């Protein structure tokens, strides 16, 4: 009898490393996307996030998690999308002060639960995405990935924003929905509507979830990301509509994190 050699321990992909900001793009007046390049970035899956760590000269450091918005098909860099939050410790820096060439500590990619991969799902399996505000970011990674992978599964994004001008990725979502590959985007605007708006005008509720899900049916795989209250409403609605809880994946964000 011989003992097999123990398998080599996989190098941990989650150590901190330095990333460089290579591009900054305004998405809305209060939201920017940053492109980050890290030399030993192992690539990500759609839906994963990354931790950022900022350290002040006196050694005080803060960490925050940001979803990755870019598609996994782009491997040399990744995008995060940052909303300016007036009393946040990190977002004002990322939104106002950071410039191309800045270096930021990153750890990731992180997460294996809130992930969708075109190759890992039955080709015709419907996909139902529900977003509130910047909760659209990981879902955008899924939609960009879906488009790049050539998937044509019936897919709907129900996206709640306060005002039309706060809809993140608006023109790109319009373009993706116009591609005639099975994607529909449904907006609801909770605070103000432009003249002639015919879409939803209220917070996400049971009836809106039921109506938005109906064309896809109860066989859909669901991902919900947004403020905790929105996630609870949407997830509970879907389970009441008969979707198995393990097909309803959720990610909550809220006030200052770790």
């Amino acid at each position, binding site marked *: 009898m011989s003992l097999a050699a123990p398998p080599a321990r996989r190098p941990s992909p*989650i150590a901190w490393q330095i990333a460089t900001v290579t591009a900054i793009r305004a998405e809305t007046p209060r939201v920017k996307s940053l492109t980050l390049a890290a030399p030993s970035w192992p690539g990500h899956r759609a839906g994963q996030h990354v931790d950022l760590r900022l350290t002040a000269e006196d050694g005080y450091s803060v960490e925050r998690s940001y979803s990755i918005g870019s598609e996994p098909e782009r491997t040399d860099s990744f995008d995060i999308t940052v*909303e300016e939050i007036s009393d946040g410790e990190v977002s004002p820096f990322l939104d106002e002060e950071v410039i191309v060439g800045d270096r930021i500590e990153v750890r990731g990619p992180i997460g294996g639960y809130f992930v969708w991969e075109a190759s890992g799902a039955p080709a015709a399996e419907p996909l139902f995405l529900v977003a509130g505000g910047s909760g659209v970011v990981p879902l955008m990674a899924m939609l960009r990935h879906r488009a790049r992978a050539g998937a044509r599964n019936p897919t709907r994004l129900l996206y709640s924003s306060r005002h039309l001008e706060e809809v993140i990725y608006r023109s790109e979502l319009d373009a993706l929905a116009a591609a005639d590959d099975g994607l529909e985007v449904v907006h609801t605007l909770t605070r103000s509507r432009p003249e002639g708006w015919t879409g939803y005008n209220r917070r996400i509720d049971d009836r809106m979830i039921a109506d938005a899900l109906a064309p896809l049916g109860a066989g859909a795989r669901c991902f919900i990301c947004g*403020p905790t209250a929105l996630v609870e409403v949407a997830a509970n609605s879907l389970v009441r509509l008969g979707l198995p809880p393990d097909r309803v994946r959720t990610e909550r964000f809220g006030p200052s994190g770790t």
Partner: protein
Amino acid sequence: MATDGDADFDDAVLDGNAVAGVLASTFGWDMTAMPSQCAHCHNVNITAELRAYTRAPGIVLRCPTCSGVVMRIVETPTSTLIDTSGIAWLRFERR
């Protein structure tokens, strides 16, 4: 996800996704999809579905069914302390 604050949606509870980074760097791999049994009510939960309270010197993860404390995590400059007394068992998938 973005874990910086937003006064308009001031709800204090996050979920296990928010602590995936500290768990992954402590245990060596992703823990968000891992099932574990709550020692209080014996419900089996996925880490990502645990309730995460992060506005404190440490992090508290609670069972979504019974609200019992499942895990407490404190990071110091040199170490990470994880109290797992609220977990009956957890399952790692070997790859």
